[in-house]
């Protein structure tokens, strides 16, 4: 029997991921309790993004299992689409639909996946745009607004689906420095609202302030998992110490 602890929204069990000859994830297990904010840090190539993408099966794990909301994720397309509709994802490069306005970006999946009618979808979309503070950009095309606004629109697009879980894949890495704060502010607001979030980021200040737990990954493995205080002030492993000293004393 496969058992599963119901207080965990996400359970990753012994996941391996290989890309050809390259092993990106090496026997990773991780449980994410409902309502918690998890921040994953680590050097590039450590498998952070791959782990995140395995949760909503944008990458299929080579071995191991991913459980979401008490159900095992599988390759079955119908099941997968149902789960994905409940998992919001925010990408490094925003990935707003380039041919649609900001409003249409949000309403598309509401109409196509959730089968809402035009009016319901627009009401919901405007609600979310207000929440992230860019309601006035609803009729703009993605290319007409700043990177920070695009990323906030992408967050609104994910939120409009009423997800149980939000995944953030380096959401501020492609932004100009002066736009990082506006996106982090929105994410901080969500963290305080109690949405379950898993965030891959290089923003250590944000990790300290927002995370319930911080995970340090290296070479496809979870090296250390602790509260932000514990991990940043008293790192247990030398690898974590080295990484922190390199990024914090730059």
């Amino acid at each position, binding site marked *: 029997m496969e058992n599963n602890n119901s207080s965990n929204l996400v359970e990753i069990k012994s996941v391996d991921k290989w890309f050809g000859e390259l092993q990106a994830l090496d026997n990773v297990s991780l449980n994410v309790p409902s309502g918690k904010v998890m921040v994953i840090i680590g050097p590039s190539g450590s498998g952070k993004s791959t782990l995140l993408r395995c949760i*909503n099966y*944008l990458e299929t794990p080579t071995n191991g299992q991913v459980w979401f909301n008490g159900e095992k994720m599988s390759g079955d*397309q119908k099941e997968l*689409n*149902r*789960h*994905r*509709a*409940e*998992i*919001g*994802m925010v*990408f490094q*490069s925003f*990935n*707003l*639909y*380039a*041919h649609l306005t900001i409003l249409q970006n949000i309403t*598309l*999946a509401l109409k*196509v*996946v959730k089968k809402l009618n035009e009016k319901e979808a627009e009401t919901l979309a405007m609600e979310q745009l207000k929440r992230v503070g860019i309601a006035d950009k609803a009729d703009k095309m993605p*290319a007409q607004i700043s990177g920070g606004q695009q990323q906030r629109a*992408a967050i609104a*697009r*994910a939120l409009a*689906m009423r997800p149980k879980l939000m995944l953030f894949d380096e959401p501020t890495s492609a932004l100009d420095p002066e736009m990082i704060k506006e996106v982090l502010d929105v994410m901080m607001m969500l963290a305080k609202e109690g949405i379950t979030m898993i965030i891959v980021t290089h923003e250590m200040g944000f990790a300290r302030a927002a995370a319930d737990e911080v995970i340090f990954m290296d070479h496809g493995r979870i090296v250390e998992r602790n509260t932000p205080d514990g991990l940043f002030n008293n790192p247990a492993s030398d690898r974590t110490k080295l990484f922190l000293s390199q990024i914090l004393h730059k």
Partner: protein
Amino acid sequence: MIAEDSLTPAQKIALRQSRRQRLRTRLATFPWWLVIVGLIIGATLWLITESPTYSEAFATIRTGMVVTLVITLISYTISLLIGLFTGLGRVSSNIVSQNIATLYVEVMRGIPMLVSIFFIALVLVPGIIEMLSFLGSKFTEAGLTGIGASLANMNTKSISMSVRAVIALSLTYGAYSAEIFRAGIQSVPIGQMEAARSQGMSYGQAMRNVVLPQAIRNVLPAIGNDFISMLKDSSLVSILAVRDITQIARLYAGHSFRYPEAYTTLSVMYLTMTMLLSLLVKLLERRLANNGK
């Protein structure tokens, strides 16, 4: 405009030089070739109105215009549909549809269009008809008289050469437009598909709502140019004795021996149509480029 009085002498010289330079680039980039094309078309028009033999040639060839246009339009529409689905097959992860699509594209592109028109019109279509009528006789033997009789009654002659020409052009051009659609789909960043899938859209929903609208927009000029090529290549159907403008010009030249009249008029007719169409494509291209900003 700059008030020249307020400039220093040195600035005046510089301004004059800059204007001369601008004039030079304008002269260098002016489409002189287009003026010559215009002159050729104008001269031929003048001949058609002034010379009785030219006006007779034009009046005769013109009667094939409907056939040329109808064959081009129908074949083009069908080829776009074939191309769209074949293009989708080419980028599909399904091994069967991917291989069928690739087989079709590679075979079609590996045979000269003239030859594939012969093959499709004179071998493939009759072959399929024979197969169907054979099936029809089998159905009749098996007691399915209704469908059996209608299939058995099909015979090769019941499919006219014009229809075969349309089938041949559609199939050959379908392979070309498949490559255009494939390139268009692949020009859309992978993140667009991923974002759509991450929201719970199926592959088909993501393709239809997110990837294809952007892909088609990207390839609109190429699709437009394809129409121009189709208009020109529709002249190949004259080898099936379909009475398009090329065939009529050939017949006219053959019995009147007025080769210059027939072929000059014919060439200029094609040239006029393709020039106008490529102008439209250029306008479209410019509008799309401006919209993107």
